[in-house]
């Protein structure tokens, strides 16, 4: 059967267009984005001069989740200010997301 995960990606805002494009290519049926600020290993990211972050949330099947995470790790993780995490969620219309 088909468990759905809510995968959350928080990354340097300039990466939003490419990440959004890629997760859709990897099976996400949609995503929700919002501008956030934050702090992490790359320091404080809370103003437009130094750049802020984008938070991209997507509800995806476990397979797509794995696939997307693998891709992000290969392409972005070691170079960019970025984190990703996921957890299972219950949705209303499963087919909407598959």
């Amino acid at each position, binding site marked *: 059967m088909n468990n759905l995960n809510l995968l959350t990606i928080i990354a*340097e805002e*300039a*990466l939003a267009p490419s990440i959004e494009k890629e997760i859709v290519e990897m099976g996400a049926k949609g995503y929700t984005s919002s*501008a956030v600020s934050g702090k992490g290993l790359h*320091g404080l990211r809370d*103003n*437009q*001069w*130094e*750049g*802020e972050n984008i938070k991209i949330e997507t509800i995806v099947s476990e397979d797509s989740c794995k696939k997307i995470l693998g891709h992000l790790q*290969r*392409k*972005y993780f070691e*170079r*960019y*200010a970025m984190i990703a995490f996921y957890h299972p969620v219950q949705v209303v219309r499963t087919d909407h997301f598959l």
Partner: protein
Amino acid sequence: MLTSILSPMVLAFLLGIIASRVKSDLKFPDSLYQSLTIYLLIAIGIKGGHKLSVAAFSEVWQPSLAAVGLCCTIPLWTYWLMRKAGKFDVPNAAALAAHYGSVSAVTFSAALAFHETLKITYEGFMPSMLAMMEIPAILIGISLARINAPSITGEKQVPLKEVARELLAGKSSLLLIGFLVIGFLVGDSGWDQVAPLFDVPFKGVLTLFLLEAGLVAGRKLSDLKKGGLFLIGFGILFPILHAILGIYLGQLAGLSLGGATILGVLASSASYIAAPAACRVALPEANPSYYLTSALAITFPFNIMLGLPLYHEIAKLIYHIN
């Protein structure tokens, strides 16, 4: 001298620094910062285009050569110095080269305001120099990193062609060049329609923007130690050097005293809108607390407070005026 320190713009910048040092809760909403940036770029572009439309090509081509020459060579020796003397690694040296080769629209605006306050004339087409000088240095800087550290490869690497496209289509050059063209085309009647928004209140908006710049610069001051004495020295001496070079080339290119000084300011200024954005994407290994701190917390304040009057004096020497 005093006139430039006691200008509302400089004082607003200082107030911003103070505000961030006393941990004020004063914060510009992101969208206000973005709106002010859009406004400044449009205002500079459309006015420059309008002035360009009344200038003869013969006056423009030589200064243009000088401008392009400056922004293509500055990154080269900057990179070299950063590697050798500064002991910076490839990405950071390249990022600094990109920032100091490129230009600062706000420093440029402060220079125009400075000259207008002192009633010194300058060539109206200088904004087109600003537009020309913004991108090349950034591309050169990034290329230097690619050539000297070809390590990162495959899909990880943003192709240089893509970087170039993003820079040209990037907010700042698109608005600057786009409105240069618009200002060039609309003629006097068109200019009169927009001048009340894009010309009359310009210095006031610049004051507002510098308050915000001060807020950020003030926070970056604490990063200065990370950069160390070398960065501070570099962030002050190199701009002076570039300014002298710019003024001198400006004179050769037949610019007036004012125009040459402004070309010097362009050469000495470091970008902190286009360059940081590009470097975050194309040179993520470079550390913002080097390039942003030196550009925003050292060179920028030095230029608008001490640099402008200093470069003006230097220009007078070069032009044998006293």
